[in-house]
């Protein structure tokens, strides 16, 4: 069982597996929206004292924070006990494109040359991680959801507003990939 789970999963297994999470949460009377936790944490830290938006009973959203805690544990378990020894198989054209940006492909889940504290403490690193994180927080709250809430749940419920949000995700992603990356990494 562990051996089978440890192999890289084909996409047609992963997609329905993600829908299973949606099913579990819906049948528990909840929703699948991870970025709501960013507001939950702000509310939990007491920011509701100053900002109306965070003035809500975060304890009612506690289930989602437990879900968040679980996701950290799940990442740990998968990385330590279900890791495939093979390098991930990224398209050769992507490897070539990234090489032009001086980002080597090392076969890991994340490029080790970027995902390190020594890289983080450079101007590029701060822009990528702190800046990127900031835009994720601001953007998902503004759009009222992220990939789980809009791309998975919203599209599954055939909501037009989620389709608009997902189009936005791609406008931002393509802008970054084709216009920002050549500036940042060269």
């Amino acid at each position, binding site marked *: 069982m562990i051996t089978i789970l440890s192999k890289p*999963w084909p*996409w*047609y297994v992963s*997609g329905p*597996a993600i*829908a*299973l*999470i*949606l*099913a579990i949460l*819906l049948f*528990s*009377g909840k929703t699948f929206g*991870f*970025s709501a936790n*960013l507001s939950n944490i702000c509310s939990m830290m007491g*920011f509701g004292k100053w*900002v109306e*938006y*965070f003035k809500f009973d975060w304890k009612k959203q*506690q289930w989602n924070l437990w879900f*968040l805690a*679980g*996701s*950290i*544990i*799940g*990442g*740990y378990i*998968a*990385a330590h006990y*279900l890791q495939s020894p093979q390098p991930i198989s*990224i398209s050769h*054209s992507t490897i070539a*494109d990234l090489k032009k940006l001086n980002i080597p*492909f090392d076969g890991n*889940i*994340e*490029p080790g040359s970027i995902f390190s*504290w020594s890289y983080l403490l450079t101007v590029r690193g701060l822009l990528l*991680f702190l*800046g990127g*994180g*900031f835009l*994720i*927080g601001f953007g*998902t*709250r*503004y*759009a009222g959801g992220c*990939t789980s809430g809009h791309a*998975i749940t919203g599209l599954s419920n055939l909501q037009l*507003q989620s389709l*608009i949000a997902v189009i936005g995700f791609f*406008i*931002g992603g*393509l*802008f*970054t*990939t084709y216009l920002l990356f050549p500036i940042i990494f060269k």
Partner: protein
Amino acid sequence: MKAIKYILTGILFGIIMTKSEAVSWYRIQEMFRFQSIFMYGIIGTAVISGIILIAVIKRFHLSDMDGNPIQFLGKDKRWKKYLIGGTIFGIGWALTGACPGPIFVLLGQGYTVMLMVIAGALAGTFLYGVIRNRLPQ
């Protein structure tokens, strides 16, 4: 005791996100460069499964485990917040290669640099909370 159920669901989510490789910065680049079906296959089959799931729930008026009817958000005619907010998130997604769920999954995998992404995300959330009434909705 309810906490255990959501922790277990979260663990399952963390494992699925890791094994699907949807948490990978490389995979997100591959997606935004349209160089593989991989990420589109994941999102596509997740959404097709989700459409069937929600259609069945609605058709048979299914209830959740506590016996309450399962309800969904209504339609929203606004579009600016979704387009502008979505675009801002998309830039962050491509920069970090992670959306909110994977940020925490990656932290669990041992990528401690994600702490900085989380700090940034909380700051961004806070700023949104402060200026939201001045933004086009």
